[in-house]
């Protein structure tokens, strides 16, 4: 199921985009070139991007323009980025940040 707005009464038809594959927590998802990580995952109905460090509760985008830092995710094996500002690329590996457990290790 896609949430893309293909036909818009004022903005017109969504131009054809190159399709690429991204991976989120190991799962492959289809994305459009020009998507941000947040929009690509939202288009596939994925809203939970990480777990809160202390409570372990889910978090997703809040402001979608880089102010709130709620959508931070890990790209590759270390860089933490804001999903709403980071463009996708073919084969990009994205990981949810997970909750801390006592002793400072991640679950």
């Amino acid at each position, binding site marked *: 199921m896609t*949430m*893309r*707005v*293909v036909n*818009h*009464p*004022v*903005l017109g038809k*969504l131009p054809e985009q190159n399709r690429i594959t991204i991976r989120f927590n190991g799962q492959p998802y289809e994305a459009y070139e020009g*998507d*941000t990580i*947040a*929009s690509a995952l*939202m*288009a596939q109905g994925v*809203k*939970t*991007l990480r777990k*809160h460090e202390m409570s372990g*509760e*889910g*978090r*997703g*985008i*809040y*402001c*979608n*323009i*880089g*102010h*709130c830092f*709620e959508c931070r995710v890990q790209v590759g094996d270390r860089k933490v980025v804001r999903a*709403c*500002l*980071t*463009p996708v690329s073919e084969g990009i590996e994205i990981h949810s940040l997970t909750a801390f457990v006592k002793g400072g290790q991640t679950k």
Partner: protein
Amino acid sequence: MIDLLVVGAGPAGLSAAIAAAEQGLKVKVLDEFPKVGGRLLGQLHQEPSGEWWNGIEMGEKLHQKARLEGVNIQCEVSVSDISRTDFGWSVYTSVGMIKAKNLLLATGASETAIPLPGWTLPGAISIGAAQVMGNVHRVKPGNSCVIIGANVLSIAIANELMLCGVKVKEIIIPETGPVAKDAGVPEKVMASLMRLTHLAPNAFLRQAGKFGKFVSPKVAAQFFPKNGIRVLGIPIRVKKAAIEIIGEGQATGVRTVAVTPDGKRIQGTEQVTEADFVCIAGGLAPMSELASIAGCSFKYVEELGGHIPLHSERMETAVPGLYVAGNITGVESAKVAMAQGKVAGLTVAFNTNGASKKTEMLVKCALDDVRKTRANALIEFQPGIVEARERIYVQFEQERIAVKQAITVS
């Protein structure tokens, strides 16, 4: 070295860059977002003439013009710190340090959140987030939504979400409290909606304005129908307040309660409205962290949306070589931001190239254009903007004199 570094590629920043580059200055623009245009990108509303204000197109026009004038624009760059130096400014970014003689902060505004139980659930997002997701990325955050916060921005965006194919189930208000304040008091909400009469940007808002044309906000709130007024199919319910965003793992609806005209809960009126996602619309506030780091003086101005760096009508701050334009100086429409940007760009050119009659003329015309644009504004976010602006300019001149005297004495 760069003559002018602009932070923010929105309507103000781009317009300033174009104006300065036209006067021969070497200009660079930075923005965090992957696309040029800032908050212009999400905007889409109908003008009284029937024409559509298409922010994406306007952003593209400004982008092209800036490129044509030789402006260097770099996206996906975040500015984390700035410091004054002998030559002007050192600006620390995610891609290294950039030196510039002059700095213009056109960082715009950010949305004020209204925390309520459940607001951190995935699927509970700001109204601006939904706007950008739908209009810019062309992705619906869900098929149905509830909007918490009945104001000019939320009503305009409700209409935009509908165009994206989202069913907006209802627009309700937050419960009043230390953050929501008047936004959760029906009679105050009515008073602010009733100001949006014939000038409002679409039929939706115009009807909301007509409703209260002959009665006081207080009376209007009292007799406001329980089921709301429905315009273009979207019910606006100003006497229904959100008390919790509910859902297991992600938002699936809002728990609501009926409130009295002065915002008190009415017992036994709890309901749940189900929705795929929930938008929080708490209004806008100037985003001024970088001006604060630079050492600007600040004033709290309710009419302009919050704390703003003290500045002149020509967009100078009291810090030499530091300028501001757009919503960082107060929340207004993109058209005003564009006009202010032009003033800022020309002022930088005037101060850099040396005073000339020709540039002075251009600045004066640009200032005139700001006043005209403001007078014709379709969306007035707060009453009393013109008066508040005048007060700021007077305070700025007083501070400028005080600083000069302090320097002379020491």
